[in-house]
């Protein structure tokens, strides 16, 4: 504490508090509180609070210090000792302790040149890593998805074998759809057959005329519209499960009626050749095995094919009289 302030009125011994010092100086100058309040543009209560050191009634530390400084200047006193007193006696305040905690704002930053080269390089590297991760994830995901396809097809197999006749009533209505769908599947199926039976010879067969189609029409799109590897997987799956599936072959009758001489080959899912021979005109063949059947008919226009009691339209599968198809 300084010995004397600028006014020279308050010695160290007299200096008890900032408020008291100000009040005594004010009285010395013969001013009333009202006059001071008017000059400082403060309220009368605020001046009284300053003089009584009731800092709690004043707006805050910053303002208390400012008011005391202004008051001291008005009374032509040195403000420094008063402010030092305030430093010791003002209640501790952590002014910005609770700055509003708000959402993170992403600042839009223009992609400009300059010293951000390093940052952008890091960004590119990170971006490439992210792309790699994402593509790995997609690959992983897609490889997992092929398994559910298997189970679906298995369901389809059993359902088609279990309810062969019930769909018959809806056939006329759905035949268009089924033919459209099977058209798609034919290409797939034929590829599969070519792949597996590449060595087998082609032959002629009578053309199939009947346009009623694969019985489980509702399932048709599920079953037939699958990528080749899925079909292959299906086949192998059924292969493994064949022991349990054999009893279900009751409804899998396949009937071939040859109107003219035709080569016929039928292989079931277990690879058993149910037929591989030249059928003479007028011959009829009943076959039974484990679906799906892979069928090749050499003279499709003059051959009729019945599956589960229904006629199979060979038209969509026929290419230069040879029909390649798969039936489930």
């Amino acid at each position, binding site marked *: 504490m300084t010995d004397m302030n600028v006014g020279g009125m308050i010695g160290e011994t007299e200096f008890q508090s900032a408020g008291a010092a100000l009040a005594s100086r004010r009285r010395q100058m013969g001013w009333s509180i009202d006059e001071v309040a008017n000059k400082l*543009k403060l309220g009368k209560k605020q001046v009284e609070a300053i003089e009584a050191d009731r800092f709690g009634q004043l707006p805050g530390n910053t303002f208390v210090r400012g008011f005391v400084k202004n008051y001291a200047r008005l009374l032509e006193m040195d403000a420094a000792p008063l402010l030092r007193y305030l430093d010791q006696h003002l209640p501790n305040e952590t002014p910005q302790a609770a700055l*509003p905690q708000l959402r993170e704002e992403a600042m839009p930053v223009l992609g400009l040149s300059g010293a951000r080269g390093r940052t952008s390089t890091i960004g590119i590297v990170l971006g490439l890593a992210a792309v790699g991760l994402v593509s790995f994830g997609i690959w992983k995901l897609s490889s997992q998805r092929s398994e559910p396809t298997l189970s679906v097809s298995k369901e389809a197999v059993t359902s088609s074998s279990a309810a062969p006749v019930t769909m018959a009533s809806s056939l006329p209505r759905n035949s268009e759809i089924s033919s459209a769908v099977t058209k798609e599947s034919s290409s797939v199926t034929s590829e599969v057959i070519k792949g597996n039976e590449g060595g087998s010879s082609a032959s002629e067969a009578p053309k199939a005329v009947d346009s009623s189609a694969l019985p489980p029409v509702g399932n048709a799109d599920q079953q037939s519209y699958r990528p080749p590897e899925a079909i292959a997987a299906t086949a192998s799956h059924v292969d493994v499960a064949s022991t349990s599936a054999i009893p279900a072959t009751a409804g899998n009758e396949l009937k071939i009626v040859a109107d003219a001489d035709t080569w016929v080959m039928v292989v079931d899912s277990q690879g058993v050749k149910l037929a591989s021979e030249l059928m003479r005109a007028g011959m009829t063949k009943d076959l039974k095995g484990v679906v799906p059947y892979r069928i090749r008919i050499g003279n499709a226009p003059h051959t009729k094919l019945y599956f589960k009691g229904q006629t199979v339209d060979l038209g969509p599968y026929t290419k230069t009289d040879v029909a390649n198809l798969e039936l489930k």
Partner: protein
Amino acid sequence: MFGALSGYFSNDLAIDLGTANTLIYVHGKGIVLDEPSVVAIQQEGGPAAKKTILAVGAEAKKMLGRTPGSITAIRPMKDGVIADFTITEQMLKQFIKKVNPSRVFTNTPRIVICVPCGSTQVERRAIKESALGAGARKVELIEEPMAAAIGAGLPVEEATGSMVVDIGGGTTEVGVISLGGIVYASSVRVGGDKFDEAIINYIRRNYGMLIGETTAETIKKEIGSAFPGAEVREMEVKGRNLAEGIPRSFTISSNEILEALTEPLNQIVSAVKQALEQTPPELGADIAEKGMVLTGGGALLRDIDRLLMEETGLPVIVAEDPLTCVVRGSGRALEKMDRVGSIFTND
């Protein structure tokens, strides 16, 4: 995680890129740089010759108005915004280099930088790009009234109105703040520079003498005042007599300077009055109780608080260390940068 890691190795900065002075606050270190925003550029040969930076800051300020033809000492900031983009960028780069010497493993700093609340989007973007060009990793902008209020220790986060008047070199910012946001803000392009200009014009008009900016600034600091006081001070000034063309000295008094400053001061007063008019009544009542706080170099003008007190009838206090309020406020915002979003402004 990457951001936290790179933040560990970098010194984040808060910059008060002012018209008159640039101050830099480093996270954890405080104010480390306070230099005039002046750059001296040397250009040898023709106008297409390469320019090199001769000096920045205090060193360059000494050269202001005292340079030969090949050197130009310029102030790249004018009216609180960038007047010369390239030179501002270079100046910032030099300042940042001074406070943040590049070391191995040092990352580019994040920077909080102040902008006048009246600046346009183009001006804000220019400031931002300058900082990015000077090597910042990320730049946040904070409006000057907000930074000044935080720096002055006002309770900005409370539901009470606080009014701050920041009189800088190029602009005067008036802001009313409540709940961590700016309720009203206005900016007038009047500040220390305009005071100097007014003094130069006054002396030319009344004395027929020409003085430089540096001399005008000295006069303002020595005997300038905003309100007539009991004591009249005088100062001897040297300048060039316009009629004779010869340097002469003369004496000028504080009352004359007061007269010279009347016009720019009136603009500040009317900006403050307009702010009070626009303030919602509840906040106006808070301000009537607490008054307004003056920050910035202009607050050091003698009796400017008394002028505003008499004009508005409200208590006016000058913040402690008003020159550094803005940068201290920005620094505090920088320290809480990851947690506070609203105090920063969008450009």
